[in-house]
């Protein structure tokens, strides 16, 4: 049985993971340049050693409430076909190794939480690990200036462990 390694991070208290192969690096908060007229999910541009990287807010992508004022996000830099993209997350976790036998079906309660982004769920000791599909996480309707649910959605908390 082959084990899989995930770079993990939390967003709004939920533990997410992305396969390590898709992740270029993780960084603490970087200064961002805001991009006017951009879709709401684009938080800004960061300078990654001379390379300009678009930072996307994962909370926004998942339809969660915005980060509390003053809390600085961290960067999970993903490799992409056309350059790196940064996902802004709340906190960076460890690299976890899991085995396929821990896989669980997607809980129904995930309905609201950007279900199309979640590739799978692993039951770890004490909590669930939601596996994020990196390419759908950074794909969205670019024509949209603002997430339509923005502000209305209060961000339901993640499913807690049984």
């Amino acid at each position, binding site marked *: 049985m082959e084990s899989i390694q995930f770079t993990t991070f939390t967003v709004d208290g939920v533990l997410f993971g992305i396969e390590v192969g898709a992740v270029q690096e993780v960084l603490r908060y970087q*200064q961002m340049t805001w991009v*006017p007229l951009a879709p709401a999910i*684009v938080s*800004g*541009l960061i300078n990654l050693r*001379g390379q300009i990287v*678009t930072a996307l807010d994962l909370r926004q992508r998942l339809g969660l409430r915005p980060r509390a004022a003053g809390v600085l996000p961290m960067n999970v830099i993903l490799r992409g076909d056309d350059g790196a993209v940064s996902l802004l997350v709340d906190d960076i976790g460890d690299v976890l190794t899991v085995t396929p036998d821990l896989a669980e079906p997607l809980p129904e309660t995930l309905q609201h939480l950007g279900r199309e982004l979640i590739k799978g769920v692993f039951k770890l000791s004490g909590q669930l690990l939601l596996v994020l599909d990196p390419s759908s996480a950074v794909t969205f309707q670019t024509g949209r200036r603002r997430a339509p649910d923005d502000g209305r959605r209060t961000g339901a908390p993640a499913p807690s462990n049984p």
Partner: protein
Amino acid sequence: MSSNDENEEVIKEFLIESYENLDRLDRDLVALEQNPGSGESIASIFRTIHTIKGTCGFLGYARLEGVAHAAESLLSRLRDEEIALSAEITTALLTTVDAIRGMLASIEATKQDGDGDHSQLVALLHRLQSGQVPAAEAPVTAAPTLAPAPAAKTSNAPAAAAPPPPSVAATRVETAPASPALATAASPPVPPAAAPPASERAVEPAADVRAATAVTDGYVRVDVGVLDKLMNLVGELVLARNQILQFVAGVDDANFTATTQRLNLITTELQSGVMKTRMQPIGNVWEKLPRVIRDLSLSLGKRIRIEMEGRETELDKTIIEAIKDPLTHLVRNCVDHGLEKEADRVKAGKDPEGRLSLRAFHEGGQVNIEISDDGAGLNLDRIRSKAVERGLLSADQAAHLDEREVCDLIFLPGFSTAEKISNVSGRGVGMDVVKTNVERIGGVVDLTSRAGLGTTFRIKIPLTLAIIPALIVTSGGERYAIPQISLLELVRLTGAQVKASIDAVHGAPVCRLRGSLLPLVDLRASLGLAAAADVPSLAEADTISIVVLQADNHRFGVIVDRINDSEEIVVKPLGKHLKGIPAFAGATIMGDGRVALILDVLGLAQAAHVVSSKERSKARRTQGTEVAQRRKQSLLLFSLADGRPIAVPLSMVSRLEIFDGRTIEPLADYRVVQYRGEVLPLLDVDALMGTGGGNWQDEGPLHVVVHGDGKRNVGLVVRRIIDVVEEHLDLKKPAQGRTVSGVLGCAVIQRRVTEVLDLDVMLRTEAGRFLLSGQDVAPAGMEQ
């Protein structure tokens, strides 16, 4: 050098280019299958096939051309959504790609496009085109029967056996002064479509430098990849230098400052040195054109002479690559549509041999390329009706377009006036591609056409894309870079100037700048950072900083919070998430390490509707009608000898001057004065209006209203300048029986009946002979 060598060169280029195109086709086709609705993918595939077909057509590979033509017809129907994409179609198209690849391999090996039988494939393509789905037919393996083409056998695995990367991807670097014609460059490994010199774009690993082997006569062959990498590194160095320069400002250490200055100098020199290695004369691209023109004109029964001027004009390699296709398209267009057949030319009384001229020159940090023919010019009516036919416009809209707008129609996607689809053109691909490609590298194309006399295409492109001078401004707390190339001037209004200069036209803010009105755009509003500033609140401001920009031949002012300074910036492309925002052309990294966005001046203008050509021409059309007469106008008021007031629209006045009466000199029947290095003919408004006319020499200072059409100026001598006023002009027709040419009518201005003059008409009638015959030839006499 024999023509054989030349031919080989052309074929080699064709092969390299086609292999690249085929690789892209594979990707595009697969992407299309996954996302069948994507019109963009179809258009891209269509263009690629079209390019291959066009090129192999003039190289004489009939078999290859036949296959490509069939595929193109199929794609054309797909593009027009006449048939829907199905798995059969995709398979057939992929098979076509493989077949083409096989033939290319054969060309590479034997100079022939092989003797494989593709009739089955062509028939299938035709069948699919007519919408018939072959009943349960297995994927056609119309594999060319050629041994050296393994790729062709695997019809369903297109990417499996791509040919080895072309081995000639190197350009020459001049290390000694030599004639530019020698620096023939082979096509680079990067496809021209990836034009932005993305400094972070991974350089192909195939960068084994063959330098050591080919050191002859001061030339070294260097892989293009190495040059690209070098350029990227210089870009990074420029950024680092900028950061250090900013840092040094806060440090009080003479040693450090001196070192920094040296670093600065060296970086600048290194930058220009590396740029130079990438410069190539435009002649490199032009050299291929005579052949194209010759073959094409032969097949069309035309005789064409080609003239070239400025072939040594140098451009950055990426730009040369990017304009290669547009140039070829334009030239083919001139040959196909522009120039008439020999018989028609004779009938029109023209030289039976058509002339096609290419000109290139540097101007204001840009390169201008002109392609002109002495053909029939554009047939505006046919373009109009074609546009209506194609559903691009309604008949009513088309009738209201002016000449320039009609000309612009040919740049719309899917537009073609060719009656029948030929191998050369007529599928409506081409001009839109030309425009897109040129605009992608920050250039503009425009065209002027005169019926019966010919058409001229003008391309303006920047010298280089990688590192550009830019003005840094601040708006809404963020910095933005504006490419210096679009910048005309900076205006700063303070205190009373603000109130005096800011005005509204139809509610939109304008700035009165030296007699002309400049539309204003608030950058914060354009970027959605604030509501559009209304005129009253603008007029309240203490200071206003305006950046005057030029986009597509229109001037407009952008209001910014602060103008910082100008800086060399390294242009970096934006990620795909931000590509769709027209206001931004890219991003750069500033001295402090933060990212700043680069404004796309044209995009900005369009978003703010400053450059809606429709709006402008509507205004132009209504001029002279009641609407225009009711509009507020700036008028210059002066008085005649008998005290009568006269008004002239300020837009017709170039300048107001005062001359010493003693400097007036007689010249034949005119009086002239030396003015800014030219001879300015003077006309007396009193003489023209029949109110006398003085002996000027005795009268001390003379007030002269200078009117000019840009080339020739005329001075109108007036008694006294009264004022400049802003009035709603309610023109009444001049009294019957007494018409002085050039009097528009009269209006009540400042409670007095005032005659309003059209200087253009008046002075042209009067001074026509003088102006026509030129200032060095004295006219025989006045008309009146």
